[in-house]
């Protein structure tokens, strides 16, 4: 599925993170970048399952939503400090992941996807009716608090906290993928029967991967609540599960950086599609394009179809394949 073997990836990552840290100085809008980082972490966590273990979870929004509400509640009602709130959110999501995983890994392949989807939908209805979530209105005005006397109400202060959280989580994913545990996960993806015959307790490895992925997705959801100051039902809706699949697919499944690229592309598209539609409407004179902003799903759906039919390796995956071809030619 993937070939990621560059000589020294660490320096590349350092450069990437330094670039991200400098973005606000270069004039990027911090809230937008933070939102992208949250979704990027979400997609990276999701990719740990699909890209490195071969499990397509169609219910990952459940973990984003669970952690969003849990962290929001901890910060707003219990008055927990920000980092404790994030940790609490991630833990709740991991626990939920354990529960989902126990049920879902009993079946593999397409059934696994359908079960995760159905369980997530069940949780969605629970959030819709439970009193602490605020129902349709969501959980509003979650305070950002302060870390070590640093007031997070200022966007720039929060920005560096979010970047630090992202780097820590990315490092954890990197370490996981390159550990013996990660190698076992890859072997399950490549040939599950062989992994079983080698004596690995495949179900336990899958469950561990699922819990880890859910916890990291939860960290993304909790961070998102801290950044935006609210948690809503949309985070737990199945369309969000679809969105994270699309991000991973567009960026490149099974590559570490792919999901980040995918998240950037999709979030930027969601925010800019209205302007884009207006530009086409002005160019062609067809008034319908003005309403393109209201039918984002039409565009995301088309991207989905194109990606699945012609572009399965995603942006980063295709770039890596191209790079490999050049490297072979030159040697």
């Amino acid at each position, binding site marked *: 599925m993937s070939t990621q073997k560059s000589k020294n990836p660490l320096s590349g990552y350092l450069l990437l993170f330094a670039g991200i840290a400098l973005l606000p100085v270069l004039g990027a809008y911090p809230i937008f970048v933070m939102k992208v980082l949250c979704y990027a972490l979400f997609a990276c966590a999701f990719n740990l399952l699909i890209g490195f273990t071969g499990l397509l979870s169609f219910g990952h929004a459940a973990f984003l939503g669970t952690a969003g509400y849990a962290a929001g509640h901890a910060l707003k009602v219990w008055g927990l400090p920000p980092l404790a709130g994030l940790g609490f959110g991630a833990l709740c999501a991991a626990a939920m992941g354990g529960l989902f995983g126990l049920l879902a890994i009993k079946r593999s392949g397409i059934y696994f996807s359908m079960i995760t989807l159905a369980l997530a939908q069940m949780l969605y209805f629970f959030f*819709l009716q439970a009193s602490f979530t605020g129902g349709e209105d969501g959980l509003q005005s979650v305070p950002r608090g302060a870390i070590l006397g640093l007031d997070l109400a200022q966007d720039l202060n929060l920005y560096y906290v979010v970047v630090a959280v992202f780097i820590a989580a990315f490092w954890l994913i990197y370490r996981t993928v390159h550990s013996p545990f990660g190698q076992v996960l890859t072997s399950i993806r490549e040939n599950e029967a062989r992994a079983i015959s080698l004596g690995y307790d495949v179900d336990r490895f899958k469950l561990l991967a699922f819990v880890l992925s859910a916890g990291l997705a939860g960290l993304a959801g909790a961070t998102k609540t801290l950044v935006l100051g609210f948690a809503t039902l949309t985070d737990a809706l199945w369309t969000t599960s679809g969105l994270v699949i699309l991000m991973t697919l567009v960026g490149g499944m099974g590559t570490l950086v792919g999901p980040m690229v995918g998240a950037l592309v999709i979030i930027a598209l969601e925010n800019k599609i209205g302007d884009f539609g207006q530009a086409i409407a002005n160019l062609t004179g067809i008034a319908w394009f003005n309403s393109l902003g209201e039918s984002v*799903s039409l565009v995301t759906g088309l991207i989905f179809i194109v990606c699945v039919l012609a572009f399965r390796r995603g942006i980063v995956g295709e770039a890596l394949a191209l790079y490999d071809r050049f490297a072979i030619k030159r040697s």
Partner: protein
Amino acid sequence: MSELFGIPLPALLGQLLLGLVNGSFYAMLSLGLAVIFGMLNIINFAHGALYMMGAFLAWMGMEYLGLSYWAMLVLAPLVVGVLGILIERLLLQWLYKLDHIYGLLLTFGITLVIEGVFRSFYGVSGQPYSVPEQLMGATNLGFMILPNYRAWVVVASLVVCFAVWALIEKTSLGAKLRAGTENPKLVQAFGINVPRMVTLTYAGGVALAAFAGVLAAPILQVSALMGSNLIIVVFAVVVIGGMGSILGSILTGLGLGLIEGLTKVFYPEASNTVVFVVMALVLLLRPAGLFGKEK
């Protein structure tokens, strides 16, 4: 006897009937999914969107062309069936050799496109569709009032479901279909055009979804989102029943509709989630589903 477990009997029977109506939609949709999965190995996520399209076509036929409900009951499945042929020939046929996952993802994309189109033209609010004249009113059975249209929906979907079951299990065409599912190469060697059979199976499956949509139009509000929540319940039905048997998907669909109806009487808060709770329980006890075969 006018009460049962402290619930007025007419109310209980009314909810059970409602459950049976929903159950027959579940049955028709999961049946189509099972047939498509058997032949194409693709989980058709677009099933809910095509069901929605069936309902919308019925509304559009009435609104723009002045066609009757009965005309649309035939026309809408035909139109959706033709669309199904296009989808299969243009998009799905490239995916058969790949992992199942890609089929699910592609049909998910198709769902987004179809829903996006309807949403951009009609918004998300529901369009009213009235019950056809011949089926208006209700029959008093003595112990309950039976709305005629609901009775018609249950009867029509049961007839269609069992006709499909008979077609697949009892006719020679069905035998070829089942053989094609087991070993397409061998069946092709007998001179049977398997790719065309695959195309027609997909068209037939989605036409069934559209038929359910037309039946649902007068009961539910016709809206762009009506398919998206339903399809997930149907997925749960499929997991509970197991994909192995045609009859299994029909019976599971009806049974779960009834369970849902009963929950609405005794504990309404759980009526949205009861199907998923049943799914969790079944998975704990029988991971392959009620009618599924253990691998």
